[in-house]
């Protein structure tokens, strides 16, 4: 058991190290997140009350799209240089490796998204009462994006131009994250209790934590055949 944990930790550490050394990928994702949000005031108009109303939704939508952009690097680089085959041969269940890679992906995209979000909330004139709920909802929601996204990324790893397919597969499955993430923020903004949507998000996180590694591992085994 502890060897599973150690191997998983090692895989996660390797992925984080790779992401840190190629920091451009993370920077690109975060830049996309910021630019996408900046487009809204320019498109909708700079009226502060309107921006405050749509702030929670636009931030979540932009976060979802930014996460989609980052998914191809989950398995594709490993597939191209052959290290995925070695990971498949590793003496630990593939599910552990998928989970470790999801954790690394979350640390290198989910956490930067969470850190950037309050800044964008200011740009979008989100009420300060909603800030805590925004961070909490994103802390619960972004790991789901990594986990469910990993299934989509693993399914398309052997596909030419699979990048265009990933959003089609993953976005329908993460719509509930968007709905409850926005609901939590909106409830906090009007001073209502945000705990119900946050608990639903927590439940979805637990469910995807259990189910997504299995589906992802099955898809990776398929790609290696």
């Amino acid at each position: 058991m502890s060897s599973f944990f150690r191997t998983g930790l090692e895989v996660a550490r390797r992925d984080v190290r790779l992401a840190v050394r190629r920091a451009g990928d993370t920077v690109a994702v975060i830049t996309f997140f910021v630019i996408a949000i900046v487009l809204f005031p320019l498109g909708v108009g700079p009226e502060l009350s309107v921006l405050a109303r749509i702030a929670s939704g636009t931030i979540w939508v932009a976060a979802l799209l930014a996460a989609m952009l980052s998914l191809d690097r989950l398995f594709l680089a490993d597939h191209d240089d052959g290290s995925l085959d070695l990971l498949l041969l590793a003496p630990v269940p593939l599910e552990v490796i998928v989970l470790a890679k999801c954790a690394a992906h979350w640390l290198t995209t989910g956490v930067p998204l969470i850190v950037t979000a309050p800044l964008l909330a200011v740009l979008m004139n989100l009420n300060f009462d909603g800030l805590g709920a925004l961070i909490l909802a994103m802390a619960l929601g972004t790991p789901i994006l990594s986990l469910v996204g990993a299934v989509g990324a693993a399914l398309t790893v052997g596909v030419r131009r699979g990048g265009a397919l990933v959003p089609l597969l993953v976005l329908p499955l993460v719509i509930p994250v968007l709905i409850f993430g926005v609901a939590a923020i909106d409830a906090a903004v009007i001073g209502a209790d945000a705990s119900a949507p946050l608990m639903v998000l927590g439940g979805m996180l637990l469910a995807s934590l259990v189910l997504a590694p299995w589906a992802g591992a099955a898809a990776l085994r398929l790609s290696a055949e």
Partner: protein
Amino acid sequence: MASSLHRFANPNRFMRLSGAVLPWAAVITAILFPIGLYLALFASPPDYQQGETVRIMYVHVPAAWMALFVYTTMAVASAVALIWRHPVADIAARAASPLGAGFTFIALATGALWGQPMWGTWWVWDARLTSVLILFFLYLGHMALFDAFDDPTKGARAAAILALVGAVNVPIIHYSVEWWNTLHQPASILRDGGPSIAASMLWPLFIMAFAFKAYFVTFLLVRMRSDITAAKLRALRRTQVEGAGMSAATPAAAEADRA
């Protein structure tokens, strides 16, 4: 269980069996649809509240049932295909998904047509409508993933995994009207205490539901049979091309021998 499954894994046996079932399913579809449509559109009484628009329900409700039923069928077929490597199950999942997408689209479109006079809007973003829309996207993703691979067996396996992941949506759709306070009305047929609609409306609805089901069986079998036939044709053509390539090589060799 497994051994009886493997009896149907043989495509030839499936072709024989489906060939026997298909005419019956087609005839039942052809009989039930006119009867159901006549009863639904002319013979059944208008609703005391909804008036004539209630007739949309006779298409909408069976289509929505089928949208879920087809996805469940597809998910079960996918599970069978993944666990027992059952080739006919893959073909069934592939054949089912465009049909399911069609039913889902009919349910969404007729729902919008009904919503305009009844709710005053074509579309609302309540839990039932949103989850059915997600189901529609899942069907589209399934179809796209199936065709994305060069190797059809890989496409089938990938799509099967996706179908199983997407199956979490099925109970959410079913219970969405109970879990959330939706504008869409809760179930009135399958509920505790029996159906809450009058028998004069229940009968046309059931006949339409069976007509939809028979239509699904008919076209599922037609699509599966044509898929299997297409695969056979491809295999035949491949052996023919290889044979032709060999005979093209031999005259030159014969000539070389003669010289």
